[in-house]
C-alpha cells in the first residue's frame, strides 16, 4: 500500500491490489517451494549415495574389489544434478528460472535414482512423486519442463540405448505409449490441481484485497472516529476544566470516575481522593443518608437526579446544587451518571438574608399597619365625638350666632376628617395596604348616592348636576362601591368646586364584558375653569394641584386625584383628563367590575305599566331632556320634549283632548317661566292635557310643598334623582292618579292629589325599626341613638356583647348596631353567638358593624363573624342609614327595603373608611 505525505493512504484499485497480493503469494509459495526442493534435493543426493553404497558399494574382479561406479555417480553425478538447483534455490528463490532448473534437476535425480536402484519399479515412483511435489509451485509450466526432461531422457535413451529404457534393443511402441501415458495422466491431474490451486489463490488474494480495502476503510473510519473522539475528549476536558461548575462522573455503582478541578475546589478533595466511593466523604454526614437514598432510588430507574445538600470542607459547610443525568448504553442499561455541581452557598446565604429581610419587612409593614390602624382609631374616635356632637347641637334651638359658629365648627370638622382620611388612604395605598372589597352593589344606587351628596353644593352654585347612565349599563355589580364612590365623589366634588356656572355631567357607559366582568367607563364633564395643558400630566401626582393658587383659593390636600388614580388602577382601570375646547374639563376613568349572576336586589318591577304612555319632559337643560328621554323611552313610553315653559304650553295646547299626556315631568328651575308658573298656566289653559305632573327641582324652598298641592303637582323631588327613584315616583303618582280618577267627578276634572309624593313621604312609607345598639362608648351611644330616633326608630342600648345577647333573648329587635371593640365580649363574638342561635332557631337578624379600625381585613372579619353591613366611625347619618339599608337588604334579599337614607336637603359627602 502506498503512503502519501499527508498521512492518508492511497488505495490501488481492487483488481490491482488483488493481483499484487496474488503475485506476493505466488512468490512466497515459489520461494518456499524452492527452498523445500533445495532441502529435498540435498536429501535425495544423500539418499542416492546411501542407496549406491547399500546396493552396489563395490565392484569385484574376482578377489579384488573397488568402489562401484554407482557410488561415484551418486556422489558426483548426483551432486552435480543437485548442486545447481540447490544453489539457485538459495540464491534466487522464487525465480521462474530457479524452479524450472529445479524441475529438471528433480527429474534427472529420478533418472539417477532409478539407475542406481537397478531400475526397481518402486524407484519409478520417484518420478510421479517428483511431479506431485513440483505441483507445489502451482505453475503448470514447471510440470511441462519436468515432463519434457523425462520425455527427452526416454527419447534419447530410446534412440541410443533402448535397452536402458525397456531392457530390450527394440521396444514396442505401446511400451512408450504406456510410459508416456502414465506421465501424461499425472500431468493432467496435476495441471487440474494446479489450476484449482491458482484459482483458490486468486480468490484468496481477491478476498484479502477486499479485506484490506475494508480494513483500510475501517482504519480510516477508526482514525476519523479516534480523531473525533480525541477532539470530543479534548473539548470535554477544556469545557470541564473551564466550567464554573464542578463536573463529576460516576459509574453504575456510584463510584467517581472523573472529577474536574472545580469539583476539587468546591469539595476540597482531589480527584484521587474522590475516586471510587471517596467522594462521599465530602458530603455532610447529616445529608449523606438522605442524599444516597435519593440517588439510589433515581439510579434504580435510570432517572435524572437533582438535589441540594451540604459538603463538609476544611473551609466549613458549603451548599451545593447537584444535577445528574444518567448515561445509558444501546440497550438502555445504566452505565453511570454525569453530574454538575454548583456551589450555591452564597445563594443560600442570600436566601436566608432575603428571608430575614422579608420577615423584617413584614414586621415593619405589620407595625405600620398597626400604627395606621391605631392612628386611625385614635384620630377618628375623638373626631367622631366632635363632629357627631356638633351635628346634634345644630339640631337644637340655637341663636344665629351659635348656629353660625357651630356650622363653622362642623365644616371644619368635616374638612379635617376629609384631610385625615386622605392622608390615611394615601399612606395605605403607598404602603400597599389598600385592599378592595368585593361585594354586591347597585351601580345606579352608588352613582345616585354620590351625586346626592353633591347636590346641595351644586344647587348653591346654580349648577346642573346630571347623571347620565346608559341603559345598557348593568346595575347589579360586584366590586367595592365605597372606593368607587370615593373616586366619583372626588371628581364630582372637584368639578363642582371648579365650575362657577353651567353643569356637571356624570356619564356612565358599559364597556367590554368578558368572563362575567364588565368594564364600566365613567366621565365627569364640567364647564368650569379647566386645567392648563402643562398641568395635565402632573395633575394625578400626589400633593399637586393645578397650581398653588388653586390651593389657596379652593383648598384641598392635593391627594384626591392621586388617590383616585391609585384606586382606579386597583379596580383594574385607569384615569385621565382632557381639556374641553369649549372650556372646562373631562375626567374619565374606567373600572373593572364583576357582574352579579343573580342580583341580590332585584330591580323594582313595574307595579304600573308604563309602556305606551305618553309623557312630556319640560326642561331647559338639553342634557337633562336627553337623559330623561332615553330612560323614559327605555321604559316603553312615548316621549315628547319641550325646552321651555312656553314651548311646553304650546305643545300642550295643541294636544288633542282625546290624547292627553299621561305624565309631564317639569323642571322647576327654568328661565323666564319656572315650573310652578307653567303648571299654573297649564291648569288654566289645558287642564287635562298634562296628565300627572312630577316636578323636579335643583333646590327646595319652604312652601314649595304647599304650592305643589295647590296646583295639583303629584310629586316634588330634588335633583339629582336616580332613575329607580324616578320610576318609583312615576308609578306611585300614576297609581295615585288612577285611584283618584276612578273616584273622579263626572265632569272628569282632575282631582288634585291629596298627598304630595316626596322623598320624605317615600321614606316615611317604610316601616320603623327597633334597633339594638351595642356600644360601650357613651358618646357614640348618644350620637347613634339620636340619629336613629330622629328617623323614627326605637333604640335599646347594650354596653357590651354579653348584654346585647341578654337583651336579644328578652326582646324582639329588627336590627343590631354592633360595635366591634367592646369589653367582656366584642362585636365579632357576639355576632357569632347570634348566628349560632339562629342556626338552631331560624331567622336572621340584620347586624351592622360599627368600628373605628382601619386594619386590613376588618371588613372581612365582620362578615366572617356573620355581620351584614359595616360602617366606620365617626358615624355619619347617611353612611349609617345606607349601611342599615344594606343590612336589611342582605338579611331579606327578596324584599328590598330601605330606611330613610337622607333628608330632603340632600346628602353630605359620604366617606367610608376601610
Amino acid at each position: 500500500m502506498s503512503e502519501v505525505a499527508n498521512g492518508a493512504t492511497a488505495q490501488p484499485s481492487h483488481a490491482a491490489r488483488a493481483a499484487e497480493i496474488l503475485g506476493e503469494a505466488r512468490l512466497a509459495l515459489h520461494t518456499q517451494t524452492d527452498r523445500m526442493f533445495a532441502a529435498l534435493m540435498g536429501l535425495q543426493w544423500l539418499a542416492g549415495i546411501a542407496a549406491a553404497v547399500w546396493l552396489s558399494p563395490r565392484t569385484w574382479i574376482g578377489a579384488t574389489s573397488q568402489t562401484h561406479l554407482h557410488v561415484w555417480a551418486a556422489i558426483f553425478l548426483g551432486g552435480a544434478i543437485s548442486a545447481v538447483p540447490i544453489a539457485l534455490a538459495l540464491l534466487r528463490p522464487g525465480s521462474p528460472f530457479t524452479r524450472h532448473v529445479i524441475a529438471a534437476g528433480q527429474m534427472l535425480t529420478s533418472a539417477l535414482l532409478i539407475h542406481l536402484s537397478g531400475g526397481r519399479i518402486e524407484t519409478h515412483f520417484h518420478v510421479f512423486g517428483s511431479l506431485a511435489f513440483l505441483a507445489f509451485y502451482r505453475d503448470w509450466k514447471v510440470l511441462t519442463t519436468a515432463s519434457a526432461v523425462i520425455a527427452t531422457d526416454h527419447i534419447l535413451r530410446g534412440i541410443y540405448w533402448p535397452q536402458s529404457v525397456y531392457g530390450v534393443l527394440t521396444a514396442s511402441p505401446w511400451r512408450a505409449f504406456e510410459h508416456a501415458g502414465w506421465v501424461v495422466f499425472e500431468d493432467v491431474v496435476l495441471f487440474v490441481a494446479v489450476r484449482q490451486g491458482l484459482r483458490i489463490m486468486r480468490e484468496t488474494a481477491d478476498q484479502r484485497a477486499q479485506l484490506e480495502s475494508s480494513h483500510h476503510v475501517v482504519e480510516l473510519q477508526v482514525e476519523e472516529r479516534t480523531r473525533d473522539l480525541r477532539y470530543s475528549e479534548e473539548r470535554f476536558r477544556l469545557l470541564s476544566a473551564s466550567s464554573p461548575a464542578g463536573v463529576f462522573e460516576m459509574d453504575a455503582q456510584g463510584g467517581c470516575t472523573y472529577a474536574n478541578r472545580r469539583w476539587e475546589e468546591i469539595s476540597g478533595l482531589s480527584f484521587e481522593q474522590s475516586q471510587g466511593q471517596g467522594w462521599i466523604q465530602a458530603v455532610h454526614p447529616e445529608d449523606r443518608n438522605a442524599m444516597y437514598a435519593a440517588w439510589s432510588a433515581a439510579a434504580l430507574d435510570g432517572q435524572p437526579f437533582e438535589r441540594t445538600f451540604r459538603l463538609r470542607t476544611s473551609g466549613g459547610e458549603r451548599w451545593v446544587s447537584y444535577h445528574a443525568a444518567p448515561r445509558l448504553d444501546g440497550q438502555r442499561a445504566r452505565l453511570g451518571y454525569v453530574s454538575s455541581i454548583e456551589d450555591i452557598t452564597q445563594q443560600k446565604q442570600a436566601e436566608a438574608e432575603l428571608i430575614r429581610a422579608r420577615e423584617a419587612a413584614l414586621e415593619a409593614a405589620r407595625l405600620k399597619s398597626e400604627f395606621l390602624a391605631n392612628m386611625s382609631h385614635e384620630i377618628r374616635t375623638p373626631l367622631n365625638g366632635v363632629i357627631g356632637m356638633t351635628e346634634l347641637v345644630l339640631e337644637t334651638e340655637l341663636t344665629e350666632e351659635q348656629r353660625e359658629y357651630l356650622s363653622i365648627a362642623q365644616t371644619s370638622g368635616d374638612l379635617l376628617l376629609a384631610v385625615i382620611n386622605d392622608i390615611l388612604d394615601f399612606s395605605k395605598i403607598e404602603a400597599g395596604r389598600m385592599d378592595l372589597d368585593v361585594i354586591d352593589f347597585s351601580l345606579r344606587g352608588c352613582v345616585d348616592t354620590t351625586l346626592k351628596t353633591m347636590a346641595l353644593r351644586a344647587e348653591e352654585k346654580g349648577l346642573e348636576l346630571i347623571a347620565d347612565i346608559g341603559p345598557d349599563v348593568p346595575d347589579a355589580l360586584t366590586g367595592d362601591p365605597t372606593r368607587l364612590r370615593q373616586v366619583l365623589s372626588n371628581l364630582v366634588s372637584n368639578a363642582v368646586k371648579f365650575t362657577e356656572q353651567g353643569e356637571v355631567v356624570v356619564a356612565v357607559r358599559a364597556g367590554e364584558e368578558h368572563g362575567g366582568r364588565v368594564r364600566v367607563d365613567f366621565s365627569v364633564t364640567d364647564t368650569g375653569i379647566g386645567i392648563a395643558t402643562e398641568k395635565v400630566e402632573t395633575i394625578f401626582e400626589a400633593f399637586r394641584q393645578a397650581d398653588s393658587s388653586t390651593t389657596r383659593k379652593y383648598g384641598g390636600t392635593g391627594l384626591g386625584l392621586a388617590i383616585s388614580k391609585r384606586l382606579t388602577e386597583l379596580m383594574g382601570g385607569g384615569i385621565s383628563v382632557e381639556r374641553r375646547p369649549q372650556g372646562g374639563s373631562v375626567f374619565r376613568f374606567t373600572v373593572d367590575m364583576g357582574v352579579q349572576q343573580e342580583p341580590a336586589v332585584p330591580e323594582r318591577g313595574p307595579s304600573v305599566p308604563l309602556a305606551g304612555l305618553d309623557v312630556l319632559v319640560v326642561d331647559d337643560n338639553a342634557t337633562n331632556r336627553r337623559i330623561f328621554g332615553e330612560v323614559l323611552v327605555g321604559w316603553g313610553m312615548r316621549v315628547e320634549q319641550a325646552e321651555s315653559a312656553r314651548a311646553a304650553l304650546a305643545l300642550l295646547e295643541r294636544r288633542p283632548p282625546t290624547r292627553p299626556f299621561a305624565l309631564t315631568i317639569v323642571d322647576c328651575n327654568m328661565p323666564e317661566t319656572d315650573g310652578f308658573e307653567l303648571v299654573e298656566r297649564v291648569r288654566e289653559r289645558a287642564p287635562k292635557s298634562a296628565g300627572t305632573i312630577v316636578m323636579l327641582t335643583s333646590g327646595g324652598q319652604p312652601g314649595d310643598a304647599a304650592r305643589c298641592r295647590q296646583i295639583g303637582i303629584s310629586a316634588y323631588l330634588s335633583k339629582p334623582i336616580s332613575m329607580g327613584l324616578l320610576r318609583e315616583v312615576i308609578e306611585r303618582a300614576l297609581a295615585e292618579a288612577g285611584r283618584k280618577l276612578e273616584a273622579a267627578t263626572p265632569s272628569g276634572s282632575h282631582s288634585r292629589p291629596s298627598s304630595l309624593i316626596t322623598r320624605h313621604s317615600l321614606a316615611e312609607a317604610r316601616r320603623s325599626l327597633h334597633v339594638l345598639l351595642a356600644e360601650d362608648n357613651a358618646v357614640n351611644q348618644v350620637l347613634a341613638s339620636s340619629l336613629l330616633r330622629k328617623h323614627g326608630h326605637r333604640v335599646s342600648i347594650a354596653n357590651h356583647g354579653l348584654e346585647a345577647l341578654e337583651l336579644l333573648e328578652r326582646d324582639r329587635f329588627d336590627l343590631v348596631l354592633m360595635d366591634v371593640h367592646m369589653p367582656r365580649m366584642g362585636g365579632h363574638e357576639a355576632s357569632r353567638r347570634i348566628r349560632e342561635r339562629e342556626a338552631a332557631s331560624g331567622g336572621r337578624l340584620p347586624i351592622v358593624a360599627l368600628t373605628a379600625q382601619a386594619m386590613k381585613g376588618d371588613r372581612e372579619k365582620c362578615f366572617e363573624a356573620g355581620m351584614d353591613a359595616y360602617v366606620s366611625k365617626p358615624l355619619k347619618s347617611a353612611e349609617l342609614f345606607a349601611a342599615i339599608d344594606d343590612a336589611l337588604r342582605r338579611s331579606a334579599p327578596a324584599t328590598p327595603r330601605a330606611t330613610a337614607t337622607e333628608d330632603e336637603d340632600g346628602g353630605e359627602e359620604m366617606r367610608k373608611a376601610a
Partner: protein
Amino acid sequence: MPSTLALRRLARPALLALLVVAWIAVVGIGMKALLDYQVRPGAAAQPPVTWPAASAVPRTAGKPALVLMAHPKCPCTRATLGELEGIVADTRGALDVSVLFVIPRGFDRAWAHADLWQHAAAIPGVRLIEDPEGREAQRFGAYTSGQALLYDGAGRLAFAGGITPGRGHEGDNAGRDAIVACVRPQDHTLARVAAHEAVQTPVYGCALASQNTTQGGRRCPK
C-alpha cells in the same frame, strides 16, 4: 557504450544460461558414462557344448540343467538372481537349477554366504554350490558373474549368456526369454538344440576371476 548496470543486467541471464548449459553438459556426460556402464557387458563365456563330465555340479539325467555362476558380492548379480527367480517360476520345475558361488582365493565360505547367497537360497528348487577358487566356473568356461548356461536333458548346451537387460537391471531380456523358450519349445516356433546354435546373450556382472582368460572374457571395468 552500455552502462555497468546494463551490462550487469545483460550479464546475469547470460551467466545463468551458461551455467545451465554447463550443468546440462556435465550431467549429460555423467549420465552417458553411467549408461555406458550399464550396458557394457562382461567377458562372454566359452562354455563346453556338452556337460562337462568332470563337473561336480549335480545333474538330473534327462532333465535340462541351468547353471548360473555368481560372484557372491557382485551387485549386478542381484538383478540376475531376480530374473532367475522368474525363470524358475516360468519353467515350473522343468529345470534343474544350480547356482555356483565362486569363492576367490583368500575368502572363506562365510564370506560367500552373503545377501546374494541368501537370495539364491530363497529361490525354490535352486541348488547352491560353493565353488572355491572358481574351479567349476572354469570347467564351464564362465568369466562373468551372472553367466547362465543351459544344457538340455541330453547334456547339450542350449543357452549361454546373461539373463538381465543391463547391469543390475531387472526386466525383459533375451536371455530369460531364450531359456524359457528352450525349456518349453511349444511356446516358441523354433527350438535350437545344437550347441553351435546355442543362444548367447551379453552377461552383465563382475569378473569371477582376477585375471583375463584367452577365451575373451572381460572383467568388470574399474
